[in-house]
């Protein structure tokens, strides 16, 4: 195996240590405690698959799902197909607008749903630890119930859940992947257990729609390791299932397996070879995989690439909280630089939109660089939020949506400037970046019209505010283009007509913005393209011969009488 290059820092795989921490704690014992009892009980009470709930300590609740009695030997291979399940639409994302669930698990879950809905309400109200657990198909129902529960929880919920399954088959497809809730799931799987791989194809060359989610604690008689990379888990489960296939199907006793592992935990592994490890990551992962029964030959056979795992771990290791803190301040810095630019432009009686569009100052060049940083940062934030399921995405973005809106109002005009300078037309429908659209969409305007007081307070502040509609300048540019068409002798009658209509709409739009104090007084600066437009075309626009609306006349009046000079209480520009 090739050695890592010298300048890279050593990496480690903690799959074995995490598993050992779980095994040596009593968490698994607690989760497993009632399962055998329940299974025995069920023999006497066939068909009952209702979970039992008990409270071993005042702040701990345990919910156990037993597999249905007729499936303990072999859980319904005919129920192995995936069916779409719209009830879990809370997991939908843009990339994956559907969730499919294993039929057997779903049927069982649905049959219990009335009972579970009451249980859910009761559990959410409780304060403390909640362990939801189950064996085999019971574990699948436990997983579904946990998702169902997590969806109903909010920040105020004091109940802290974890779902621990034992030897459960995979329950769903790619649609389960995107949730941050993955971290609430721990699936214990023995390498002797045929059930978890039941719905998987026998070789890695065939594909499957099933996708594991959560952390898997894989164990053999020799040891155990925890993994959370779904592709790797899928491969490992395929290896396990290909090895147990054809053997005797017997119920795996997880209690026995885990007791043995707990004993083993304080035994040394194989004796020390002597040297320290030059490549700590691959040494670790190879040992970890070996202890769960996957040796080098099997790695090759099943196309499991340790180098790729290391590369992924390396890219993850780069992201740190400290680095994020620095980045956030850098973003603030770029915004401050743009604010400064805006102010300098205002002093030049032009407004930053026009200054940037005309590229008059030396510093305009750097503005492009700041924009680049800001756009990259926010495109990434928006994409991250957009990938998450609805509710999760919403709570993720509340903390920064305010900053995002300020960014949109500050930077989008510059993007518009670049677009129209390059001769573009119809920015809003042809060029506007998706991340601006989403930022605008997420920023919900208050439904009610502003009250008198609110308007007054806006009026006070309007000179320091940013224009609310970040596409304002795109409208201005379109109005200029409309006027050009109108005054062009070669224009067709239809074009004239539509241009005039656009112009009227524009006037009405600007008037509304003005009345709501939603535009910055900077648009009235002497050399802004808005004022240039007005200066150039006012005679034409105000000509009484054209059809127009009352509101449009108001706008014409506002401009003609120069009332913009006292807009927002600001000094005459």
């Amino acid at each position, binding site marked *: 195996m090739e050695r890592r290059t010298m300048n890279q820092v050593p990496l*480690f795989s903690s799959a074995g240590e*995490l598993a050992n921490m779980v095994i*040596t704690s009593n968490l698994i014992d607690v989760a497993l405690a009632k399962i055998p009892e329940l299974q025995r009980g069920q023999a006497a009470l066939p068909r009952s698959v209702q979970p039992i709930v008990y409270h071993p300590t005042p702040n701990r609740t345990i919910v156990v799902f037993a597999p249905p009695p007729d499936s303990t030997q072999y859980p319904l291979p005919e129920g192995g197909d995936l069916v779409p399940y719209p009830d879990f639409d809370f997991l939908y994302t843009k990339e994956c607008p559907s969730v499919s669930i294993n039929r057997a698990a779903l049927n069982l879950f649905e049959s219990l749903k009335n009972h579970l809905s009451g249980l859910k309400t009761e559990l959410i109200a409780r304060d403390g630890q909640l362990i939801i657990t189950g064996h085999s198909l019971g574990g699948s129902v436990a997983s579904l119930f946990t998702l169902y529960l997590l969806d109903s929880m909010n920040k105020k919920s004091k109940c802290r859940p974890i779902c621990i399954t034992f030897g459960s088959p995979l329950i769903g497809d790619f649609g389960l992947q995107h949730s941050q809730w993955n971290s609430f799931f721990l699936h214990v799987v023995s390498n002797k257990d045929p059930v978890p791989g039941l719905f998987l194809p026998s070789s890695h060359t065939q594909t499957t729609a099933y996708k594991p989610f959560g952390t898997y604690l894989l164990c053999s008689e020799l040891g155990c390791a925890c993994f959370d990379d779904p592709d790797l888990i899928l491969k490992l489960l395929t290896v396990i299932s290909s090895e147990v296939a054809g053997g005797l199907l017997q119920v795996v006793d997880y209690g026995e397996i885990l007791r043995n592992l707990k004993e083993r935990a304080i035994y040394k592994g194989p004796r020390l070879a002597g040297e320290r490890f030059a490549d700590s990551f691959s040494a670790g992962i190879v040992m970890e995989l070996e202890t769960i029964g996957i040796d080098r030959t099997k790695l090759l056979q099943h196309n499991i690439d340790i180098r790729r795992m290391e590369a992924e771990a390396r890219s993850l290791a780069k992201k740190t909280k400290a680095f994020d803190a620095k980045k956030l301040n850098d973003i603030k810095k770029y915004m401050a630089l743009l604010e400064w630019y805006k102010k300098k432009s205002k002093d030049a009686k032009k407004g930053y939109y026009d200054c940037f569009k005309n590229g008059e100052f030396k510093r305009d060049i750097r503005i492009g660089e700041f924009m680049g940083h800001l756009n990259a940062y926010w495109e990434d934030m928006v994409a991250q939020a957009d990938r998450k399921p609805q509710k999760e995405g919403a709570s993720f973005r509340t903390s920064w949506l305010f900053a995002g809106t300020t960014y949109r109002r500050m930077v989008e005009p510059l993007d518009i400037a670049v677009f129209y300078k390059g001769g573009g037309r119809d920015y809003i429908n042809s060029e506007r970046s998706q991340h601006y659209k989403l930022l605008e969409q997420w920023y919900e305007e208050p439904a009610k019209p502003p009250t008198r007081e609110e308007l007054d307070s806006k009026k006070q502040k309007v000179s320091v505010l940013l224009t609310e509609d970040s596409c304002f300048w795109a409208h201005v540019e379109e109005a200029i283009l409309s006027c050009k068409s109108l005054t062009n002798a070669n224009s067709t009658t239809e074009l004239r007509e539509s241009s005039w209509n656009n112009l009227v709409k524009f006037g009405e739009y600007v008037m509304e913005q003005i009345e709501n104090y939603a535009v910055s007084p900077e648009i009235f600066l002497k050399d802004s393209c808005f004022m240039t437009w007005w200066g150039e075309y006012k005679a034409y626009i105000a000509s009484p011969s054209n059809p127009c609306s009352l509101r449009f006349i108001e706008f014409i009046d506002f401009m003609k009488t120069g009332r913009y000079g006292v807009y927002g209480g600001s000094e005459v520009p």
Partner: protein
Amino acid sequence: MGETVGNLIGLNDEVIHPAATLAVEAHNSPSKQFLVKKIKIRHDLSSVVVLAFSGSMLPEDWFGQPPFGETEIDTGKFPSLTSLNDGGDAVVNGSFLRRFNDVLDKLSHAKELKAAIEKKKQVVFAGYSSGGPIAILATLYFLENQTLSPRCLTFGSPLVGDRIFGHALRREGWSDYFTHFVMKYDIIPRIMLSPSSTEHKQILNYFKSKFDKKNINPAPPSGFYHTVMGNASSVASYEACHLMGCRNPSLDIIKSFIKLSPYRPSGTYVFCTGNGNLVVVKNPNAVLQILIHCAELGESNTAEVEKRSLDEHSAYLSELKECLGMQAVVSLDGGPATATLNDLGLSPQAMLCLQAAEEFENRRSRNLEKIRKYLEKIEVELQMLRKYKENAQISRLGYYDSFKLQNEDDDFHANVSRLELAGIWDEIKEMLKEFELPDDFENKPEIIDLGTEYRRLVEPLDIANFYRHSKDKETGAYVIGGGPRPKRYRFIQRWLEHREKKPFGSRSESLFWAGVEQLGIDIKKKKNLQEIKDRIRQLERNMIAWIDVDKSLDKDVLLEKTTFVKWWRDLPRECNSESERIEKLIGEKAAGV
């Protein structure tokens, strides 16, 4: 090789064995709280005073409230044992702390100790078994009081404090004063990693009857090894996950369901391998991993190891007699050495844990290097701001108000500098929170000085920005702790207060402007008049002290056109208590410009 233990821990080798002997003797003399002995050093004829503490095998002297009997340390007695960045106070075993408090009075009046202090003799506090924790706390107590700089030697001592405890020791530079000898299988140094249980009681009872000498050969308990070591192993694995940079998001969730022991090793550990070799380890993460991994079961059966884990607790004297003469001592710091690991009998997985512990230290050093590079950048930005501040005097506005107005180019540049600096200090803050910088970082004089200058110069700009945007309406007032005040300033303030041994909040000069702004707002709101008067008086007094006495606040707050002077002059006369003094200061400043 060729080093002796003494060399590595900075103590004469001749002291160690006699100290161990005294410690064992003291442990078994419960009628006396401690024993004192003077030990002569042969080669330079100096002498060392050893105090050794008695022990107790009563379960209540080991475990208070189950499962771990921990309690927050009394920071009145131990002011340094706290985190300077929101990590809270150190946690120690409550029973051990109580036993230390019981002995403290007699200890501080011990004439042998007073004589040693007077003659500037080296003092060593020693403890065997449950005498160890008392020796550790006594050593710390005297280090805190700076009356003497004692050494601490323990033999088979249980763990006393948590991660913050160890972190604080290393931050203060005291870690090297503590040396703990541990036999390879001795159960007692591991016992605190496991929650209190019937097995614990059995172990303690066994030793009690053994030490009481009522029963020379009490029947040893059995079946405890799996319980104690299993729980200890869980702790070691949890820490290993962190050292190895575990990114599995389930780790935190799982951890919240598991109650792990809070106790962690600190100080220098000397492992006695049982074949005449000693291994010295200072890296606390490596110590923890070795504590667990070297006592793992190998080929020998459990019963055998279990018996050994009890026997070895009584074998320190004979073992040390054998090894101290020899020079078979290895230091593990600087990376695990293969030969040593064979002595300790570690597995490949343990080797990886040790490499991860070593790498963690390397990472912290690399982070420090990264910060060192930032220091130049900080200096450049501070220089710009110093200049900005100086220039702002010309307009008699001062840099606070100038910044708040944001009218000039210079104000914008200052704002960019402010944000550059915030980025760097926030990165430092996050690293400290995650223990990603060396433990002594917050105690480095050059860092504290630079941080303090940064805080005094730049925090007023943050306050100006805060009140310029009326953020108090959204987040509440800008106050010393919590709320909207950036945490970086709170931490940096703590570093200085800690160095000067002053209480939190005593170095709030950088918050002067927040006090002024908030008073202005509260007066407009017509809040409780008496309270406002008191606050004005306090502000005036603080200001005079900061300006006149310790010069921590610059006189430019007294410039005529500042928010402060304008506000202060508008105050009704009955509000001022120091009007003459302040008027004089304002006059002086005006004349000086």
